């Protein structure tokens, strides 16, 4: 009889479930905790870290100016990336072959050459074109100036970071627009809406949901990418720290000061990113 137990008056509901035990997890956790403690203890007690020096420089005016520069670079480079990136995405999606090819070539070029190389290139632009002039083809010159007076380190930094960022942002925006089902634009067209209204009211708001989270990530990587600018002697956070330790030889504590500030900015941005993502994922 297969169901003999059923007839025997057993209380089936009273049978409790015992989950499988995993003793090795506890062993592994203990080992990891021990290692973490050892690292923390060494960081706290090794005098070479020079924590008092770190504390002294955390709010140093020169460091704070460098920090401001880093934030400024991030903000402006991202703005360039967003505006130019939107334009490139719309060109890329345009039925006009010339526009979409130019956009494709731009994205290909600026995504392929490393940002560091681009930065150094812009910084040395004067060697390529000693004079920059605005003139009509075969016509009169409207404006002319020496390159070195125009391409300041700030300009080179923004060009290097912003133009490359535009290429990445363009791909994100293009993907966002392409993710909106074709039926949306069709329904809007059938209601008598015109192309610009359809983009503004129907397609773009839906694309934003796909665009915002990766752009948030890009902002966070941009904060870190600005440190590349130290190679062209622009006094952002890292280069400021380098300037100071070149003078005082307190290399490690100043690198820690810079790292702590990057940690703080990125953490704050990550929290914001988390809320943005949650908001745009709702519905």
């Amino acid at each position, binding site marked *: 009889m297969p169901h003999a137990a059923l007839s025997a008056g057993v209380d089936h509901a009273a049978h409790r479930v015992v989950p499988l035990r995993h003793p090795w997890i506890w062993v592994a956790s203990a080992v990891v905790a021990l290692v973490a403690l050892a690292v923390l203890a060494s960081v706290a007690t090794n005098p070479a870290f020079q924590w008092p020096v770190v504390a002294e420089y955390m709010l140093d005016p020169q460091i704070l100016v460098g920090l401001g520069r880093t934030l400024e670079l991030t903000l402006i480079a991202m703005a360039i990336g967003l505006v130019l990136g939107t334009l490139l995405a719309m060109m890329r999606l345009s039925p006009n072959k010339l526009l979409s090819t130019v956009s494709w070539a731009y994205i290909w070029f600026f995504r392929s050459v490393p940002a560091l190389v681009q930065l150094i290139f812009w910084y040395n632009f004067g060697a390529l074109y000693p004079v920059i002039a605005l003139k009509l083809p075969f016509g009169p010159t409207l404006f002319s100036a020496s390159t070195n007076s125009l391409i300041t380190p700030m300009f080179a930094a923004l060009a290097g970071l912003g133009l490359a960022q535009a290429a990445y942002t363009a791909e994100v925006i293009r993907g966002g627009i392409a993710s909106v*089902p074709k*039926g*949306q634009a069709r329904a809007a067209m*059938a*209601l008598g*809406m015109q192309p610009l209204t359809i983009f503004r009211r129907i397609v773009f708001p*839906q694309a934003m949901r796909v665009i915002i989270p990766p752009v948030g990530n890009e902002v966070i990587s941009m904060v870190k990418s600005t440190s590349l600018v130290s190679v062209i002697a622009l006094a952002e956070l890292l280069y400021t720290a380098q300037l100071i330790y070149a003078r005082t030889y307190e290399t490690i504590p100043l690198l820690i000061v810079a790292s702590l500030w990057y940690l703080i900015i990125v953490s704050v941005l990550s929290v914001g990113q988390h809320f943005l993502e949650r908001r745009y994922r709702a*519905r």
Partner: protein
Amino acid sequence: MTSPGTEMVKIRGLSKSYAGREVLRGIDLDVAAGSVMCIIGPSGSGKSTLLSCINHLERIDAGQIWVAGELVGYREKNGLMYELPERQISRMRQRVGMVFQQFNLFPHMTALANIMEAPIQVKRVRQADARARGVELLERVGLAAKHAMFPAQLSGGEQQRVAIARALAMDPQLMLFDEPTSALDPELVGEVLAVMKDLARSGMTMVVVTHELAFAREVGDELTFMDAGMVVERGAPRQVLAAPQQRRTQDFLSRVL
């Protein structure tokens, strides 16, 4: 205004190809003002394409289409058809409502906002007026209580009823329905058909692509059977459904009945 009996839709010699493949071949069709034209036919026979040509969501390759006496999408001059600018085509589309198989509601707007959007953006209707009209239309499709819901929070049948209300908000003279109940669970089909029946009774001119033969029989004034991009047979729904004259109609009906 067109008086009853005159043609709301008139199609002559309509042909349309996709990448060299002809999907509509010389369609002639008339829909009288105030009447309901049902279109049936196998999948891929060109029914959706035909509807899309009527409001110029698709370009045509040959032939002419008139809606309310006006040539759709083109201007005729010396025997040539010049495509109209987007602005004028949009104006024509305002008078033709369309309902899609997949509803295509705007997911980032509430039911009410979906309905208010086109009147405000296209006709520049005042916010308050658009809202009042939107509420009235939601009442008409039996969804007044759900005005603040987003499409994802509504059932398929409710979404399609909102989509119908959205199209009606532009006060169209003609409504096109492309298999409005094909994406619905069977128990939700009835509520959408009821709204359509109500609309037909109010005198709206309707072109309805559907597989609901009972609806075609009961509500349709005319039935057209399409196959391979051509109109194969048309007539009074009861007659076509009960005694189809063409071999291809008989085959199709024997398969779906």
